[in-house]
């Protein structure tokens, strides 16, 4: 029994460990989409933050420095997106896709270029130490739950903190209200005297910076090894875009949504061991193809999109002006 309990605990523990990058990506994208911009460059933004944050963090042997660099470099990518789409009125879909192509390619370029100079995590003991799991006193002593939720590395808690802060910001502050107004009806927001370009720049940059932290997390979680064939981000950026829809553009719900999407993602890896530990109850899990679990987040999101639009859901958090550039003189 203890053995089966530990399998379950490990399963839920892994959900948290592996899905936190989704939370960073999703919260970042929510901040951007609430301003009315659809940034399809999550994958690339995360890749750039990951590779630069990791390398500098290793060299400086400090997780804090790594996080700063990841945030700043990704925020600069966000600045590029803002410059192109807000100032220069370029198409958001094309710009976002280009950022993804460019970011992932830059990741490989830097990795291949460094070759044997690629820093190993072992060379940065203090950074590794800062990233190691820490147990929250008292809470982590709760059997099962304590291990699952309260004995993680610091970046897990930071992610949840950012999500909650963003929720408070969007829903209770004046600036948050103004931001949502821009996403819903930029013309009206403009006539209220809100500085639309400035607001868009700031939120796109902050949102991108948050994504960069998620990228760094993925790199550290994968042991920091560069593989010539697989990018660290590995599609998490795209899942984040889907997750934004799943959680209805709500950062607080993103914490729950991340856990749900992470559940399927982790099930892909653990379905075998779960099926063999609980042959009676979960034996059927072994028969479901792993690819189905991978596709499930996208299938669910697709269904939500369709059902939401069929019901003409008034409560939908989707900003009305999403994806449309605001050009004052077309108003």
């Amino acid at each position, binding site marked *: 029994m203890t053995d089966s309990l530990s399998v379950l605990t490990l399963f839920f523990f892994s959900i948290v460990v592996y899905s936190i990058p989704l939370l960073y990506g999703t919260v970042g994208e929510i901040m951007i989409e609430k301003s009315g911009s659809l940034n399809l460059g999550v994958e690339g933004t995360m890749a750039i933050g990951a590779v630069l944050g990791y390398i500098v963090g290793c060299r400086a042997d400090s997780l804090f420095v790594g996080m700063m660099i990841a945030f700043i470099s990704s925020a600069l990518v966000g600045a590029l997106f803002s410059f192109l789409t807000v100032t220069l009125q370029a198409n958001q879909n094309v710009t976002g896709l*280009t950022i993804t192509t460019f970011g992932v390619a830059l990741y490989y370029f830097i990795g291949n270029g460094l070759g044997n100079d690629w820093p190993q995590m072992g060379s940065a003991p203090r950074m590794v130490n800062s990233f190691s799991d820490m147990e929250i006193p008292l809470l982590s002593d709760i059997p099962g739950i304590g291990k699952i939720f309260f004995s993680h590395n610091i970046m897990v808690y930071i992610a949840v903190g950012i999500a909650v802060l963003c929720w408070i910001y969007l829903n209770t502050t004046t600036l948050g209200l103004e931001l949502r107004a821009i996403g819903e009806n930029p013309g009206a927001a403009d006539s209220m005297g809100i500085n639309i370009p400035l607001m868009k720049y700031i939120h796109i940059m902050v949102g991108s910076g948050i994504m960069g932290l998620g990228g760094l997390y993925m790199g550290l979680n994968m042991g920091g090894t560069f593989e010539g064939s697989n990018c660290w981000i590995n599609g998490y950026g795209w899942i984040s875009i889907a997750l934004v829809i799943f959680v209805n553009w709500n950062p607080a719900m993103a914490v729950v949504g991340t856990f749900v999407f992470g559940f399927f993602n982790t099930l892909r890896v653990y379905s075998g061991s779960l099926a063999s530990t609980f042959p009676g109850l979960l034996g059927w899990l072994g028969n479901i193809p792993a*690819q189905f679990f991978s*596709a499930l987040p*996208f299938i669910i999101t697709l269904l939500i999109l369709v059902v939401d639009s069929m019901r003409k859901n008034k409560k939908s958090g989707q900003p009305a002006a999403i*994806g449309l550039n605001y050009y004052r003189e077309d108003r």
Partner: protein
Amino acid sequence: MNNLHLVKRSGNTLVRRIVCYIVAIIISMGIGAILLSVLGINPVSYYKDMLTIGLIGNRYAYKSVEGFLKVFVPLLMVSLALALSFKMRFWNIGGEGEFLVGAMCAAAVAFNFGSLPTAALIPLMCLAAIISSGLIGLAVAFLKCRFNTNETLITLMINYIVLYGVKYFGETKADWNFFLRDDSARPIFAKFPENAEMPGIHIGAFNLLYSVIFTLILTVIIYVYLKYTKQGYEIAVVGDSSDTARYAGIKVKRVTLRTMFLSASLIGLAGAFSASASATVSSSMTNSVGWTGIVVAWLSKLSIPGIFVASILISILQYGCQAASTSYPAIDRNYADLLQGIILFAVLVSDFTVTFKIVKRKEDASK
């Protein structure tokens, strides 16, 4: 700053655009050259290798041309197809998924009816691809027309659902799975029966595939379709303003459904061609053509001749990097993506100078 503002340029901007784009490409290549030098690689000799796609001083130059065409043909066709829907302001970004669906359905026909003669089998494969992908496009268009579902996000999801579907067929060893090789214990996609391979015209050692010829003919047909037919005109009107179109008596929904079916089915056809030309399928066979196609279509401002030129340029970039990587192992094919990204950023900036001009605000006369 306040007395400067943006004004949209009017009139013909074609020459200005071409000049701006050329400048943008040169600047990007310059940035790329700096990056290469940082890695200690001579940019001049690298660019020479890349831009000549391994044609010069190569006894097997025809192989390079064939390799180039394998990149160029799907890209051209997908970009053309996407341009159809983009002209309508319908953001079909499901090129990856539609391409794979077409390829897989063509493969299903190839494996099950492999005994048919080539002249019957290949059209049948193409038909399967056209119908299956077209239906996906039709479904998305229906949702858009009926419920105003966001098509960008829907097609994005479809890409990944299809991708994992293909991976499922490619990684599941089972009796019913006719996609895989029988003689291998590991799951590997099987080679098509011989009759399903795309035939071609032999010019010396060079094999000019019929799919290449057909794609070029199709380019002309689409050009004529958009420019000189009623249906093509309807697409343009719907794209400009669906309200105007409705007042003019155009059935907007019908145009949307028809055009999306065409767009998706052409992408599916490109998938079938690609599968037949390489006589197999794989989950990575799209070579990101669904994404690159969006970029190409947009770069060319949805003009068909523009798409033709841009497809050639991007294909040279991509295949050239592949060809050059034999002599420069430190630079893999991702360098093409990097350069492509920089070029596009530069072009987006130069786009601005083409569409807008900054003028000084005149003093308000009424004051």
